[in-house]
């Protein structure tokens, strides 16, 4: 890595690419790192192989392609330094460590850092959720849009949130058989959120297109689902639902499930950045000003890694954070441009908050996770084990429960199970969710092969 670079952008999704573009246009030549081989992030991921991209609701491949092409042109022209297939594994206030494409680890110092780590889909442990054939809705989407395959022959979508409908509608458009969309939210919640949703007409229009596509394909949309369980011995054989109209069995061989997105906080957590519990989304969010500045000098966050607002807002947030960085460097910035971005981001925030009200996380389901359900699949820790440990050892904090049960100690480091484990602990102890805390990130934040060497060792060898 070049020693002269002092501005690092982590993540080359919509936010990271936009931030990098602003900095490159200012001649600051940022370093941009992403663990993927190609830019685009999760949402603007480049499809594998050749051929036409399918036409899907709300999916404009040309927009993503334009952004990726512009980014790669800046890299080719030497206006930014692009490090694909480079996974950040550890981070301090002035240095980051990354595992590169060669399998070697390298480090670089930096003066300023824009983190665009994106989000992770929130899941809910239910009976059968670890069976082969269960995917997150985002996983099903990646399979469809990047790998051009379906996760099953008959796919049931269950959970809540706009992504669920979007991915289901895209599956229908691509010719997949979708047996149902089962939503834990209720219609009146969506209706009550309509005034807020009007903040983004195009977002609302996309929702209407998705619903229309599902209706044309006669996909049942079940709202107000009270509980669900995945059935099957060795893989998915069906989905059992408790609906308001009574129990229902769906015949399917794949389940795509998800409950909205939460920011990936691990990198910021390594810096000891402050977080706050957001009661509306019931998740932990980094403390940020509206431009994306963290309270740590020189550290910025943009995109869904800061606030869940979707791809378009992520792109604007990337631009806004880069402008904040320029401002902080004492460079002149275009005032009206900043004001326009702030207005647009505020509008997107209103829309995102309304979506949150339309599709609230089903806390009752999480509180009721059955004792024998595996919460932490990496370590095989059940809800009963968490509840028992909290009682036997008076554990009222999630990292203590982790020490006692191993929950969150496996490969995913609690990314998936952390929120549900905290809820179970809070429930068992009669505490509120915020007070039990969150699992702290520890390096390496991505699995590190023990054979990894430092770049200089490689060269010397």
């Amino acid at each position, binding site marked *: 890595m070049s020693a002269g670079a002092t501005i690092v952008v982590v993540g080359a999704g919509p936010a990271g690419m936009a931030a990098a573009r602003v900095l490159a246009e200012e001649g600051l030549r940022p370093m941009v790192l992403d663990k993927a081989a190609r830019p685009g992030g999760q949402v603007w991921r480049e499809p594998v192989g050749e051929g036409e991209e399918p036409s899907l609701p709300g999916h404009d491949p040309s927009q993503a392609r334009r952004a990726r092409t512009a980014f790669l042109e800046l890299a080719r022209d030497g206006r930014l330094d692009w490090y694909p297939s480079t996974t950040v594994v550890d981070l301090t206030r002035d240095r980051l460590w990354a595992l590169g494409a060669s399998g070697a680890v390298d480090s670089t110092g930096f003066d300023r850092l824009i983190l665009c780590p994106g989000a992770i889909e929130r899941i809910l442990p239910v009976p059968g959720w670890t069976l082969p054939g269960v995917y997150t809705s985002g996983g099903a989407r990646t399979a469809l849009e990047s790998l051009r395959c379906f996760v099953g022959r008959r796919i049931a979508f269950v959970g809540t949130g706009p992504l669920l409908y979007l991915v289901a509608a895209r599956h229908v458009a691509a010719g997949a058989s979708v047996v149902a969309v089962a939503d834990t939210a209720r219609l009146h919640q969506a209706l009550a959120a309509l005034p807020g949703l009007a903040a983004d007409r195009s977002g609302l229009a996309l929702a209407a297109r998705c619903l229309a596509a599902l209706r044309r394909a006669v996909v049942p949309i079940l709202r107000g689902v009270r509980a669900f369980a995945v059935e099957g011995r060795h893989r998915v054989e069906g989905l059992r639902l408790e609906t308001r109209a009574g129990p229902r069995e769906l015949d399917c061989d794949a389940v795509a499930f998800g409950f909205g997105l939460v920011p990936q906080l691990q990198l910021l957590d390594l810096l000891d950045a402050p977080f706050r519990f957001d009661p509306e989304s019931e998740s932990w969010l980094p403390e940020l000003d509206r431009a994306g500045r963290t309270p740590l000098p020189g550290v910025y966050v943009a995109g869904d890694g800061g606030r869940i607002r979707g791809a378009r807002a992520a792109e604007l947030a990337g631009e806004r954070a880069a402008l904040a960085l320029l401002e902080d460097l004492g460079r002149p910035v275009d005032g009206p441009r900043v004001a326009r971005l702030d207005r647009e981001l505020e509008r997107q925030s209103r829309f995102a908050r309304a979506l949150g009200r339309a599709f609230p996380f089903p806390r009752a389901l999480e509180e009721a996770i059955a004792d024998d359900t595996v919460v932490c699949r990496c370590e095989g820790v059940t809800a009963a084990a968490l509840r028992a440990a909290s009682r036997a050892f008076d554990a009222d904090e999630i990292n203590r429960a982790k020490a006692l049960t191993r929950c969150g100690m496996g490969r995913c*480091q609690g990314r998936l199970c952390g929120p549900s484990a905290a809820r179970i602990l809070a429930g068992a102890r009669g505490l509120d969710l915020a007070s039990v805390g969150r699992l702290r990130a520890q390096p390496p934040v991505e699995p590190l092969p023990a*054979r990894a060497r430092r770049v200089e060792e490689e060269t010397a060898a």
Partner: protein
Amino acid sequence: MSERLATEVCIVGGGLVGCATALALARRRTPCVLVERERCGTHASGVNYGGVRRQGRALEELPLAARARRMWGRLAVLVGHDSEFRPTGHLRLARDAAELAALEQWAAEAARLDVRCEILGPHALAARWPWLGSGLAGGSFCADDGQANPRLTTLLFARAAREQGARILEQKPVTAVERSRRGFRVVIQGGSEIQTRVLVNTAGAWGPAIAALLGEELPGEVIAPNMLVSEPLPYRIEPNLGMAGPGIYLRQVPTGSVIFGGGRGAADLAKARCRPLFSTTLATLAEARRIVPGLASATIIRSWAGIEGRMPDDRPVIGPSARVPGLFHAFGFSGHGFMLAPAVGAVLAELILDGHSSTSLAGLGPARFAQRPAAFA
């Protein structure tokens, strides 16, 4: 809400040594209050490597280690739960002839204190543990040593102490300690006070600071041993492994994870924070690959460090204060206190209640640092 407590013994520091002391006192029906600034086992006690070995220790520590080893064997009975202690043996490896000679010399001296080690040359080593890398000069195997789970052990001691009647106050920083007519007055943040006859300083890396509050000057530095763990691999490495010289240590648990230690992380005593260092992690992995080449296929999923106190001679300070009557110290375990802790608690309880212990603490007392005249008369 501020309260005033009166007790016989107040223990400052809820690491494993503090919790073991509380349990030993409570078992003898002695009123005691343990005050912990964070939660019991937050720092090195709860996140150390988990080695339970006598091999390689300073000879002064061996009487204590022998007693501790007997206690580890029946720890589940003492604390009411399995601490995952397993006598897997401890294998110390020599990289060259000089290190092997040092292992032999230690084994000969330790044999007089009843620690049995088996010295192996390079061929015997390779035959018995074929997964070891080549290029080792030999090793010393102590079959009765082993390993345990540090995450559980401190909590088990704290829980057992509480059940036996000890009062354990967590998240209570001590803001002042002073001598009083009946012994000591300990002030806790928020205004609560503890009046105690005896004060035990088990504050780990903060031990010198607690001693200083009472005018006793003791040395000590803060360290943060750097540790990592892998995803599960097939279970092969039964003994706990260490090096004769400075270097790494590693062990595998039966569920397959390999725990590596070596080098230091970064620690900030004032903020009570520490973190592993990636450069240390990479150096540990490089050495681990040389010693057990098969570990190159492991995947590291987590690293950590824990704040620990270290003394200039790498031996703990255990025993009555050289200056302040009624004050006892047990801190500065220098990265190898986990194994000793159960016995340290038992010995401290004897010193406090009986005035003497059957276990020798020669060479471990605070007097060895009291060369200069007292700063306070």
